C-alpha cells in the first residue's frame, strides 16, 4: 500500500510544473483571457510533444498508456497555472473513444488527438440542469444508416475549438453517446461569456446534425465519462486551491500591519492552517478516486463522487480565504488571485455539482 507518487509520477509533476511556470505565466493566462479563441495553439502543440495529450491513450495511437493518476497530476498542475486549455474535455472524450469506440472512430480521432491536431469535448448538460440520464432530451433519429441529432446542449466546454464532440442522445428508449464532428451540418455553436474566461463554454444546437451510424458509443460511455470528468475537475480545482494557499502563506509572511507580519496573528495563521487542511484532504480525495477508477476498485464510482463534492466546497473555501488573507489587494483585477479563484469556481457546476454527487453517494450507500 503506497499513497505517495512514484519516482516517475513525481518527475511528471515536477516537469509539468516547470513547463507551466515558464510557458503559462499569469501574464500569458491574461493574454488568452482577452483572446477570442481563448487558448494557444502553440501551447497545445507543446503539450502534445510532451506527451500530455496521449498520456492515457495506447501506444499504437501515439500515446503513453499511463493512467488516471498521471492525468490527474497534469490536471492539478494546469489548475495551479489556471491554464486556459481544453485539456480536460479533450482527454476525457479521447479515453471514452478509446474504451468504447469502433476501429473507425479510434483511427479517425485518437492519433489526431495524441499528436495535437485535434481537440475534443463532451456535451453533458442540457437546459435542465440535472445530469441524470433520464433528463436527456436530445433525440437521435436513425434514417438509412445515418443518424440525425436534434436538441440543445448547454455549457459545453471549449466547443468552439473542438473538432469532435461526444453527445449523449436518446434513440427511442435507448440512450447512446454519439461521436459528432463539429463541422457537421446542422450543428451550431454559440459561445457564452463566463466569469472565468479561462474556461470557455458554449451552447450547442443540434438541428438534425448528421452522424454516421457507427459513430455511436454504448450508453455505458456516459457512466464512464461522468466520474472521470468529475475527478479531472477535482484535480484542477485542487491545483487552483494549492496555488491560492501558497500565495496566501507567502503574503502573510511579508505583509506587515501593526508592526508585524500578519502571519504572526492567529486570526490569519489559523485561517492558513485550515486552508492547508482542506488542500491536503482534497489531495487525498482526488488521488484516491483517480487510483480507484484506474484500478477498478469496488468503490471507484463512489470515490469519484466523494472527490468532486468535497473538492468543490474545499477549493471554494481555500481560494476565497486566500482573497480574505490578502485583503484589498486580493480584490483587484491586477493581482493574480482571481485567476485561480475563478477557475475553481467555474468547475464547480461542471461534471456534476456537489448536490448531484451527494445524491449519487446516497444512492450507492443507502439503497
Amino acid at each position, binding site marked *: 500500500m503506497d499513497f505517495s507518487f512514484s519516482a516517475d509520477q513525481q518527475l511528471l509533476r515536477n516537469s509539468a510544473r516547470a513547463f507551466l511556470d515558464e510557458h503559462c505565466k499569469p501574464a500569458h493566462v491574461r493574454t488568452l483571457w482577452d483572446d477570442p479563441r481563448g487558448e494557444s495553439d502553440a501551447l497545445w502543440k507543446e503539450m502534445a510533444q510532451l506527451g500530455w495529450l496521449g498520456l492515457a491513450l495506447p501506444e499504437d495511437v501515439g500515446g503513453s498508456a499511463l493512467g488516471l493518476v498521471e492525468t490527474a497530476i497534469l490536471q492539478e498542475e494546469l489548475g495551479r497555472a489556471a491554464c486556459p486549455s481544453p485539456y480536460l474535455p479533450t482527454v476525457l472524450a479521447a479515453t471514452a473513444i478509446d474504451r468504447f469506440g469502433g476501429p473507425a472512430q479510434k483511427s479517425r480521432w485518437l492519433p489526431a488527438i495524441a499528436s495535437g491536431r485535434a481537440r475534443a469535448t463532451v456535451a453533458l448538460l442540457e437546459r435542465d440542469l440535472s445530469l441524470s440520464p433520464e433528463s436527456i432530451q436530445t433525440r437521435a433519429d436513425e434514417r438509412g444508416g445515418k443518424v440525425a441529432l436534434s436538441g440543445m446542449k448547454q455549457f459545453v466546454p471549449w466547443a468552439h475549438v473542438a473538432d469532435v464532440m461526444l453527445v449523449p442522445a436518446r434513440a427511442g428508449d435507448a440512450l447512446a453517446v454519439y461521436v459528432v464532428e463539429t463541422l457537421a451540418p446542422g450543428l451550431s455553436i454559440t459561445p457564452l461569456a463566463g466569469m472565468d474566461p479561462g474556461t470557455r463554454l458554449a451552447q450547442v444546437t443540434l438541428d438534425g446534425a448528421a452522424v454516421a451510424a457507427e459513430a455511436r458509443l454504448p450508453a455505458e460511455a456516459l457512466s464512464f465519462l461522468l466520474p472521470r470528468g468529475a475527478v479531472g475537475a477535482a484535480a484542477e480545482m485542487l491545483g487552483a486551491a494549492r496555488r491560492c494557499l501558497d500565495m496566501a502563506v507567502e503574503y502573510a509572511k511579508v505583509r506587515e500591519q501593526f508592526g508585524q507580519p500578519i502571519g504572526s496573528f492567529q486570526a490569519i495563521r489559523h485561517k*492558513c492552517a485550515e486552508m492547508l487542511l482542506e488542500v491536503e484532504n482534497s489531495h487525498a480525495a482526488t488521488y484516491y478516486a483517480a487510483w480507484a477508477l484506474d484500478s477498478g476498485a469496488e468503490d471507484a464510482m463512489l470515490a469519484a463522487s466523494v472527490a468532486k463534492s468535497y473538492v468543490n466546497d474545499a477549493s471554494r473555501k481555500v481560494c476565497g480565504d486566500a482573497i480574505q488573507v490578502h485583503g484589498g489587494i486580493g480584490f483587484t483585477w491586477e493581482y493574480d488571485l482571481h485567476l485561480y479563484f475563478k477557475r475553481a469556481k467555474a468547475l464547480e457546476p461542471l461534471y456534476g455539482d456537489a448536490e448531484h454527487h*451527494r445524491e449519487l453517494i446516497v444512492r450507492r450507500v443507502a439503497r
Partner: protein
Amino acid sequence: MDLTLSPEDRAFRDQARAWFSANVPRRELTTLAERRAWHRTMYEAGYVGMGWPREYGGRGATPMQQAIAADEMARANAPAPINGLGVGFIGPTIIVHGTAQQKERYLKKILAADEMWCQLYSEPNSGSDLASLRTRAEDKGDHFLVNGQKIWTSGGHIADWGILLARTDPAVPKHKGISCFLFNMRQPGVEVRPLKQITGSSEFNEVFMTNARAEKSDLIGRLGQGWEIAQTTLGFERGGNSMARVTRYASAFDRLVDAARKLSRGGRPLLDDPVVRAKLGRVYAEMEVQRYAALRVLSALQKGESPGAASSITKLSYSEFEKRYYELCLEILGPYGQVTDGALEETTLDVDSSSGVRSSWAYAFLWARAGTIYSGSSEIQKNVIGERVLGLPKEIRADRVRT
C-alpha cells in the same frame, strides 16, 4: 501510487478478522475485571502493543499491520483494549527514554494490563500553556517530594501508575525546569476525584498530590528534560488508530441510515427526504475523505517517515470532523437523537464511540466536544501547523519576551 494491500497484509487481515469474529465477547463488558480479561485474551493472541519491539513483548508489527488489527477490532465491534495510554504512549516513552531497570520493572505489566496507567500533565491553570505547570517535585536527597494538582486525568481512578510532568527547577525558563517521572498512584499523598463531564459520565479525574513521593529511580531521562520528552512522545498518541476510527464512524453511519429508513416525516421515510439525503451525502463524503487521509498517513508511516508536525493536520481534521458528524446525525434524527434512555430500537447507537464506551447518539454527540480540546486543542494544532508546517512567523508572546 498503489493502494492495494500486499499479499502478506491481506493474509494478516484475514487472520485478524477470523480471530476477532471467533473471540469477540458476545455480551457487554461492564466491570474492569471483565475488560481486563478481554484485554489479556487479545494480548495473548498478540493484538496488544503490536508495534512494540519483540524484546519488550510486542511483535514489531508494521504500522500497516497495527492499523489492520485496529480496523478489524472496530469492524467486529470489539471492546477496545484497556490501558490505552500505557500501551499507546507511556510504554513507548519508557522504551525510548527509560533505563534498563525501568524497562524491566514496568513494560511487561503495561502490556498485560497488570498495572494501569494514567497521564498527569494538564493542570487547572495549565491547559494549552502546558509548560506553565506548577506541580513541584523537590529533590529531597533520596526521593522527590511532589505537591500539586492535575486535572483531565483520564482513567486516574483506576490507575496504579502515572506519567508525571512536574517542575524541578523554578529558577530557569519554564520549558527547561520540568522533569518527567513514573509516579505511584497508590500512595497516601494521592487523592483522585472523578470529574463529572457534560456526558454525565466520569472518564476524567482530578488528582491531588500532597507530600507524595517519586523515587529517584523513577525519573525518566535527565532532570529538566521533561518538556522535551513530552514533546517527542505526544506524537505516539496519534497515527495508527485513524483507520479504526473511520471504521467506527462507518458503522454509526449504517445505524443512521437504518434509522432514517424507519423514521418518517410527513408520511414518508426520512431517507426519501431530499434535505436529509443531501446531509447524508455530505457527511458520508467527509467520512470517506477521513479514510483516504488516514491511508495516506499510514502509507507515510509504513515507509518510516515520521509525520512530525503534520500529525497536527490529522488530529485537527478528524476531531473537527467528528463534531460535525454527530451534529449532522442529531439534526437528521431530531429528538430521537437526544434520547439517552428508553429509545426505540432503531434509534439506538450501540457502536463504540471514540472513547471506547458503549453509547447513545447523544453520548457520541457530547463526547465529540472533547476531541477538539484534548491532546492539544484545535487552536493549538492550528498554531503548530501555521508555525511548523507552513513556516509562518511566530507570534510575539509575553512568555517568550522574557526568555
